[in-house]
């Protein structure tokens, strides 16, 4: 029998089986509308292993980004996934508060660089003494006004943890240049050349317009600032990644899986194009693109297929569209693989989120990544995760990693009729949506006209409608909520290192810090440099990075610089789109 004959045979037998076996059984159990699915070779007709999957760490990277699944040797302070960091996303109150937090974590053997969370005024380009931001200083992250704040935070990182030895992550998007300039100025003061610095700024401004919202200027001038980073980082900062693209935020903001994939690819393409337009060789800068995470959900197999589709899609874009030759240009480098997404967690019976995150961690391993039980179960409870929840999340990851043997094999679902067909389906749908965005002129116009924002909001509303109709079920939220269900609660035993009292005092202390800086710096020089920045900003082809560095060294504030740019670039008109 040849291949076609075999397939025809299966087709015939499948029809018979459906009619005589499946349908009657489904009817008997009242499942005729949604009989359990079963997949066969018919679902992946034309499947070509080398073209569609390939070996782990090889084009098109469907199987995995790297050839091995990293399981760190057990030693003191080892973190699952092999990442050693002073902390997860963290930053509290004033620079002093954050420095003290990192010192404390160092004692708990959390070493390596910080993953800095900044407060909203900093992310949106306002200083702590601005009346407008009262009540927000030092919340959701640390306040950074001037170089002084970096100096204080990084007192926790010296000696064998000095700036040339650690990697620092900063979640900043609208003011990347200014923040990196402060980091460069700090290093210079310590005698460390900028070429030795390591780290990753988030620098994914376009997704801020779609969700999350920490933009300042309109999309076009924002892209000019992105271009300045591509060019300057490629020439001067070989150890600093250019961007950490996040489809995660777009999904959490409401987009569907396919929309998220299409939009984040469109955004990635827009960033790559900036570098190409500026005359930088694709293989010189694309390897410095990273991803922080895609979105997730509880739909186990779909999330596995999604990760595989995303890796393949990005690789194809780099190779086929941008003509990249280096493997490193085509890889999606990302700390987190499949996961459930924070949006899947519930405040109701929150401990259930641990179970949910384990489902996500297993999906991660099966998708060709490292397991990570994420997020900690108390994510929806409030600000500041408890150390207990973090311990349980770490342990869940370790159990999968060290007890189950799951990490001994990579992409174990390769060749599965179901998962391969699902991978194709998701990728094809995303290409279709991406083409739509490209017909509009790409990510920037699709954001300027509000298309991505509107479509995401619509999807969010549709999801909520399905929850209300109980088509989408969430245990403890829209089902199993009867009064005889036990309302399980948990209590904190270990106190969080950042106390409530400190939190309330932070704003006042930070304002005092800033006033002191403004009193003691060379104000005339700051004014002169701000004028230079203004002149430079008006010329589209000038790279603003050197200006930010000079300003950082003179302790110019974040807002002083942002205000100059607001004057030149304008501010993004806040969207409503409902």
């Amino acid at each position: 029998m040849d291949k076609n004959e075999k397939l025809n045979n299966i087709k015939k037998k499948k029809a018979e089986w459906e009619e005589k076996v499946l349908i009657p059984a489904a009817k008997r159990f009242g499942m005729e509308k949604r009989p359990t699915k079963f997949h066969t070779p018919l679902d992946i007709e034309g499947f070509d292993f080398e073209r569609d999957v390939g070996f782990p760490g090889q084009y098109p990277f469907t199987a995995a980004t790297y050839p091995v699944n990293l399981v760190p040797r057990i030693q003191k302070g080892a973190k699952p996934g092999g990442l050693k960091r002073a902390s997860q996303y963290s930053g509290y109150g004033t620079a002093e508060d954050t420095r003290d937090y990192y010192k404390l974590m160092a004692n708990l053997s959390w070493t390596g660089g910080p993953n800095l969370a900044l407060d909203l005024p900093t992310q949106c380009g306002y200083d702590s003494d601005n009346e407008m931001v009262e009540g927000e200083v030092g919340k959701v992250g640390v306040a950074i006004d001037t170089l002084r704040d970096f100096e204080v935070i990084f007192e926790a990182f010296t000696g064998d943890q000095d700036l040339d030895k650690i990697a620092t992550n900063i979640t900043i998007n609208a003011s990347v240049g200014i923040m990196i300039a402060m980091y460069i100025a700090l290093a210079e003061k310590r005698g460390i050349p900028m070429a030795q610095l390591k780290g990753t700024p988030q620098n994914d401004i376009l997704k801020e317009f779609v969700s999350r919202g920490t933009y300042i200027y309109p999309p076009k001038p924002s892209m000019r600032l992105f271009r300045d980073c591509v060019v300057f980082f490629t020439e001067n900062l070989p150890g600093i990644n250019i961007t950490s693209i996040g489809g995660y935020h777009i999904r959490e903001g409401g987009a569907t899986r396919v929309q998220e994939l299409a939009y984040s690819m469109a955004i990635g393409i827009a960033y790559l194009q900036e570098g190409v337009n500026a005359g930088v060789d694709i293989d010189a800068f694309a390897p410095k693109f990273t991803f922080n995470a895609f979105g997730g959900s509880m739909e186990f197999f779909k999330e596995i297929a999604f990760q595989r589709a995303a890796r393949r899609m990005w690789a194809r874009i780099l190779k086929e569209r941008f003509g990249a030759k280096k493997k490193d240009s085509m890889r999606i480098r990302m700390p987190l693989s499949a996961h459930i997404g924070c949006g899947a967690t519930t405040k109701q019976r929150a401990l259930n989120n641990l179970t949910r995150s384990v489902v996500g961690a297993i999906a991660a391993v099966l998708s060709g990544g490292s397991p990570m039980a994420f997020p900690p179960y108390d994510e929806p409870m409030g600000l500041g995760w408890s150390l207990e929840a973090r311990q349980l999340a770490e342990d869940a990851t370790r159990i999968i990693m060290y007890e189950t043997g799951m990490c001994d094999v990579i992409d174990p679902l390769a060749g599965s009729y179901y998962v391969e067909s699902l991978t194709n389906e998701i990728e094809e749908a995303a290409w279709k949506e991406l083409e739509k965005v490209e017909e509009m002129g790409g990510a920037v116009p699709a954001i300027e006209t509000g298309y991505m924002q509107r479509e995401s909001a619509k999807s969010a509303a549709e999801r909520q409608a399905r929850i209300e109709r109980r088509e989408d079920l969430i245990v403890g939220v829209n089902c199993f909520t009867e009064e005889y269900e036990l309302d399980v609660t948990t209590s904190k035993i270990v106190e969080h290192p950042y106390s409530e009292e400190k939190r309330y005092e932070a704003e006042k202390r930070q304002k005092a810090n800033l006033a002191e800086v403004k009193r003691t710096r060379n104000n005339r020089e700051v004014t002169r440099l701000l004028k230079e920045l203004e002149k430079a900003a008006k010329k589209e082809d000038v790279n603003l990075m050197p200006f930010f560095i000079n300003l950082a060294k003179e302790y110019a504030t974040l807002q002083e610089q942002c205000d100059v740019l607001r004057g030149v670039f304008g501010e993004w008109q806040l969207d409503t789109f409902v």
Partner: protein
Amino acid sequence: MEQQRKIKVLMAKPGLDGHDRGAKVLAFGLRDQGMEVIYTGRRQSAQQIVNSALQEDVDVVGLSCLSGAHLTFFPKVVDMLRENGADDMLVIGGGIIPDEHIPILKEKGVTEIFGPGTLLKDIGDFIRENVRKET
């Protein structure tokens, strides 16, 4: 037959918090329930929210905040509404609000706080039961 005035709601995002999924979903959902909903967009000061509420003469002000700044913003909006004589506007809130903050906010005049997982139907019912009646 006299046409009944639709319940008018202002959905607002005070402060710099950009997480607007909840606010937008609520705007869609309450509109589907026959209410008239105006959404302010992000980054509104308390003053801007109060101005919009007064100008539009809304029945309900919905405040959404996920950044931890609710203790600053929610009472500020309530106070400013009261100062401007809008005592009968229903002010409700939502977002990531720690349980222990709910009594504080209620004491300061926020009528109800709706946390994650609340169904739109329940919020709609609450509004219909508690909104100011025709005068």
